[in-house]
């Protein structure tokens, strides 16, 4: 499993636009919003937590279809399926490398970009925390969606439509944590819910993804 994560990370760094693409997209969204909305500082501050979370979600969504598609097309996935590694581990490894390449950079870059949107100072720690807790769920759910649609026609479209509803709770709680943090309100409630969602996906998604992969490889 570690071998697979290491390979995927190496591939992501070397090629295929994995590493950094999500981050670039995140940055682009954040930079574009003032272009489109106009740069009034107060208005930006109000929408900042929401926009940051929406951007994080979009940039995670963006790279989902690469999780399995490349390996499917060049035959690696077939070979992995006949290898001694169980497909559950394959799915988990894929989710982990997706998170490292697409989720972690968002957590790190979040604050810097918050600055561009004039985020309230008090919101920074909560933004980071909510991203840190929430993004793994995005990767795990996405891995399941990618497994579900690998090799399908119209895969990309389906993937976004399938994954989106599953993403909404994470988005809502995540943005809520950052907003309340910024306004100095209690954040415990949404924070616990956010953590709960992530726990649930960790427990379920790898298995669901493996089942679905097995069917799609037939």
């Amino acid at each position: 499993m570690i071998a697979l994560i290491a390979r995927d990370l190496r591939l992501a760094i070397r090629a295929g636009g994995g590493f950094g693409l999500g981050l670039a997209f995140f940055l682009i969204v954040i930079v574009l919003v003032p272009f489109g909305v106009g740069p009034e500082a107060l208005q930006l501050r109000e929408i900042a937590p929401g926009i940051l979370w929406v951007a994080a979600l979009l940039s995670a969504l963006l790279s989902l279809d690469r999780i399995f598609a490349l390996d499917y097309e060049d035959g690696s996935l077939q070979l992995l399926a006949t290898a001694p590694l169980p497909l559950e581990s394959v799915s988990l490894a894929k989710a982990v490398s997706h998170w490292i390449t697409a989720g972690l950079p968002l957590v790190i870059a979040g604050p810097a970009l918050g600055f561009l949107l004039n985020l309230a100072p008090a919101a920074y720690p909560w933004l980071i925390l909510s991203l840190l807790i929430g993004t793994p769920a995005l990767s795990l759910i996405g891995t399941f969606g990618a497994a579900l649609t690998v090799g399908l026609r119209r895969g990309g479209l389906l993937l976004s439509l399938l994954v989106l509803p599953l993403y909404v709770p994470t988005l809502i709680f995540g943005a809520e944590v950052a907003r309340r943090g910024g306004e100095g309100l209690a954040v415990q409630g949404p924070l616990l819910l956010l953590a709960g969602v992530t726990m649930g996906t960790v427990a379920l998604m790898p298995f669901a993804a493996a089942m679905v992969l097995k069917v799609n490889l037939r």
Partner: protein
Amino acid sequence: MSIWDYANPKKFIATTTPLVPWFFGLAGVSLVVGLIWGFFFTPDDFRQGSTVKIIYLHVPSALMAINAWLMMLVASLIWLIRRHHVSALAAKAAAPVGIAMTLIALFTGAIWGEPMWGTWWAWDPRLTSFLILFLFYLGYVALWQAISDPDTAADLTSILCMVGSVFALLSRYAVNFWNQGLHQGASLSLDKEENVADVFYQPLLLCIAGFVLLFLALVLLRTRTEIGRRRIRALEMRARRQEVRA
């Protein structure tokens, strides 16, 4: 002997190596003198107060940020038309210097904007196209790095450079097209009426000269580095190939 002979890598290195220290020295002298003169020995402006001192950094760097791109444009065109490798490498070498200049202009402009316009950033045409130019610089460097074949990289980046020139020119002349921006118009024009007062003008010219010389020195040095990299690559390729054949 034609000028194109200098496009031969060896000839280029032989000719420029003795020049580089001179350029660096002259650049250093004019920058130090110009900045010290400007910083310590010019009066405050009656409207802008001491912030006028930022002009000695902002104007030369903004000027060079745009000029660097135009120099890259010329070098790229020479590469596309005459396929002189040194030309392509000079364009590659100039980009990071251009990025530094752009960053300086952006920072100093933003710092200057806060007291002058009451905001450190505005979506005014000149500022916007300058920011886009900055993004182009980043894309240009990233494109060079992403391509392993040097000739392909030179071709693609040259074309990108041509496209980006639109924004380089816009950020210089946008003020003339739209008369609505916040940003100053030409303050160094030959028209005496509009010029900055002489007290500011002389050190400013010296600083501009310093930035130009520094740019030249850096570009020559970096072009030599790029030629060296390319030569390492070629020699290693040949060595590896001889191994395989043996």
